[in-house]
């Protein structure tokens, strides 16, 4: 949907992205929220609403989101919410909340310590409990089946996938990578995301406050998310209709974009998403290295929006961010940020 009120990203921060942190999730959040607020000259007392995105299943502590509240300084009591989703969806909720018009500043976070457990054993338990979880149906298996469909449709091949890996990580050689063993045919190790611990925090402000606080707010001009059937048996895996619908609703076609940050944890997902979104060669995709370089589950999507906002902070006009959740790109979110020149 388009927006009726100016709402902008005015800053964000991320923790160091590491394979295995010694900090608790709460400690990660304390640090990253301070890092997001301080450069803008704000304190926790200025924040009217918070929404935290995290997942107890990954953290391994029931109600972990309650101790995460310690990081927001929730006294006197604050308006607060939580999504058991990537922080990109926490951002969506905060954006909706700011539309109510009575408050001006919101903070959202995404946080996860993937190293706490073994992701290959945890994620199957989140699947359909009758048909998939009892089989241990794991995310890499589903990604491989989608990669096969994407290759069969001519959208990718193993070489173009390896090229995505080399470009994202800035290391390696395509021919060498293609000599590696399959983890799940047609996926090799380089087609898979790393395991990363980390968190991100983002500050939103409404129009006037945003313009007072920073020189170039990144206005959210389009924001939408859609989902598909939970079981990949019923989906066309060489397509992503939910991404297409969300992008159209967010106004992708209204004007050119310069930069896209796509939450593609597997190499073929980037190629499929580029295809579905119709991104031409002129669009710079995942200059950050994306989820293939750093994949802090529950924060990876929010960081895509942060990277898109960075483009606007740095003088860019219009950027697209994408976040996803569920097996084989089940649910997809599109957020478009702009410098605001086109609006006023």
């Amino acid at each position, binding site marked *: 949907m388009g927006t009726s009120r100016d709402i902008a990203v005015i800053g964000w921060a991320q923790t160091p992205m590491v394979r295995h*942190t*010694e*900090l*608790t999730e*709460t*400690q990660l959040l*304390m640090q990253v*929220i*301070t890092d997001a607020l301080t450069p803008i000259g704000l304190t*926790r007392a200025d924040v009217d609403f918070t929404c935290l995105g995290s997942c107890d*299943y990954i*953290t*391994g*502590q*029931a109600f972990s989101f309650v101790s995460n*509240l*310690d*990081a*927001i*300084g*929730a*006294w006197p009591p604050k308006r607060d919410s939580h999504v058991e989703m990537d922080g990109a969806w926490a951002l969506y909720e905060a954006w909706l909340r700011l539309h109510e018009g009575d408050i001006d500043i919101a903070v959202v976070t995404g946080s996860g310590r993937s*190293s*706490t*457990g*073994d992701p*290959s*054993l*945890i994620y*199957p*338990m989140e699947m359909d*409990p*009758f*048909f*998939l*979880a*009892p*089989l*241990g*149906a*794991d995310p890499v*298996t589903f990604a*491989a*089946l989608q990669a*096969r*469909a994407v290759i069969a449709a001519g959208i990718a091949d193993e070489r173009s996938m390896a090229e995505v890996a080399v470009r994202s990580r800035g290391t390696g050689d395509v021919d060498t990578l293609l000599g590696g*063993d*399959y*983890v*799940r*045919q*047609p*996926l090799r190790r380089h087609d898979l995301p790393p395991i990363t611990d980390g968190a991100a925090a983002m500050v939103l402000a409404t129009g006037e406050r945003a313009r007072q606080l920073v020189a170039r707010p990144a206005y959210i001009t389009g924001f939408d998310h859609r989902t598909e*059937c939970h*079981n*990949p*048996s*019923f989906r066309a895996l060489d397509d992503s209709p939910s991404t297409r619908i969300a992008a159209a609703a967010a106004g992708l076609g209204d004007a050119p974009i310069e930069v896209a940050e796509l939450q593609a944890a597997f190499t073929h997902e980037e190629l499929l998403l580029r295809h579905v979104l119709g991104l031409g060669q002129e669009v710079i995709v995942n200059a950050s290295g994306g989820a293939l370089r750093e994949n802090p589950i529950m924060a990876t999507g929010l960081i895509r929006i942060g990277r898109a906002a960075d483009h606007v902070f740095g003088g860019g006009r219009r950027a697209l961010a994408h976040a996803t959740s569920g097996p084989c790109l089940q649910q997809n979110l599109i957020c478009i940020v702009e410098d605001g020149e086109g609006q006023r």
Partner: protein
Amino acid sequence: MTRFVESTITFPYRRSLGPMLSAFMTALTERRILGIRCGEAVLVPPMEWDPATGAALPLDLVEVGPAGTVQSWTWVPAPTEQHPVQRPFAFAFVLLDGATTPLLHAVDAGSAAAMADGMRVAPRWRGERVGRITDIACFVPGEQPELDGDDTGPAAQPVEIMDYNARITYRNPVPPSADRAVELSRQQRLVGMRCPQCERTYVGGRGYCPIDSIELGEEHEIDLAHTGTITNFVIITPVQYPGQTETEPFARVFVLIDDSDVVLAYQPTIELPVADVRVGRRVAAVWASPGEEIDAGGGMGVSLGALIGWMPTGEPDIADPDLVNRIF
């Protein structure tokens, strides 16, 4: 160096199946596979609604298979303990004869070279079937279903419930401040950390002030009294869930520590019968004997280490109507 604690959590789920899944699972015990009609389509696995529109589907089940065709597959060279086949196998989308959507399941073909799109496969049934998708142990190449072990026959009653024990092992960091609080407790010290900004005191080695979101260290430590007053309590009648060790009703009390604002939540009582627990009761800390095993922390909640509970001091109760509100 931060210490890590490994813990394994089991989630024993009992799921109601409802009419459609109950019919599907019961049929599995009869070595039959059911799909559901959805317009011209036959959905396998069956769904209660049209995946395209969300419209509820009438319970119009139709038998499919048992053989089918591999639509797509990927080889699993290193199975996990959760996988249905404990040697290298393929996960495959199997389009069962008569179905229009594919079922994900394992194919035990020996090697990736034996797998191909379009190959024919049939179920290998478990001899003992309970009404779960894993009653099909896997699929095998060919047209002929197989039986793995002695056939114990179909379920005597319709299968209406499915047990599923999720099990996860985690490694969580224990902040050094929490370890220190436990270490101090071995010296029979109850130590709090006072925030220099808001002057609130925290126990259990939290290591930060949640109000001001600032780190607290050893320079903020203060020794607290070993006596206090019960502000509130709960009497718990234990439910015998897996892992429950209590069998009789027991109390958990909230204790306001003397000369402080600190309330210790959810504390055990010692030599205090459940019937004698009341708000205002005076209590004193009880410490583990040296060498006694204590909760070293790192599990769920805050560990006070060698502080193992609270017993009555025998002093007169405190009569303060506001006490009951002090749970934080």
